């Protein structure tokens, strides 16, 4: 039988490993739009970690901010300054 403590901590560990992969891809990708999407994926993994670590009030604030507003702001920025890293810039 699998004990509940192992299920909860296993979910947190899985999310943590997913967040490391997403962070690496977000930092290494030269396409800023894909980097932004990987960053939102990392935020989702952190939201699961916060939920497992018994902080539901943090999740209520963190999910709209880190998965909603923050990618929208950076998306508007990327639209103006150009999508690809190392390029000549937008206009």
């Amino acid at each position, binding site marked *: 039988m699998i004990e509940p403590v192992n299920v909860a901590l296993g979910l947190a560990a899985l999310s943590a490993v997913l967040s490391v992969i997403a*962070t690496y891809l977000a930092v290494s990708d030269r396409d800023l739009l894909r980097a932004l999407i990987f960053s939102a994926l990392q935020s989702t993994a952190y939201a699961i*970690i916060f939920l497992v670590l018994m*902080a539901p009030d*943090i999740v209520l604030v963190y999910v709209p901010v880190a998965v909603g507003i923050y990618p929208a702001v950076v998306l508007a920025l990327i639209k103006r300054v150009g999508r690809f890293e190392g390029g000549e810039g937008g206009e």
Partner: protein
Amino acid sequence: MSEFEASLSLIVLFSLFANTAIALYGVFSKPNLVKKLISMTILSDTANAFAIVIGYRAWPSPEESPVPPVLTNISGGYAAVQELVQKSVDPFPQALVLTAVVIGLAVTIFLASIILHYHRTHGTVEMVVSG
């Protein structure tokens, strides 16, 4: 705490350390300002996650989890508060992180507007080209 639980907790902790290292690498070595901004938000999120991990508490038994720091039994009196204190996680880091998330959003918007003005003035966001 069994050995398997300890190793799961260590996976979470070392993943956070790895995220800190990768985000610091992104902030220091990537020339693009937008990439620096993305890396910096990952870094601040990781710092918040560290604070939440510090406030966590070990499970009293394998079946019984710690509870969120919310008093649901209002009419229970002193006994209900005593039970909550013995079973709940630390609310203090959660209060700090709640504030830090909102302040981090404000800082992100501020930096995004600064990067936008830099792009309008210099025509690029690459620090190597403009430096």
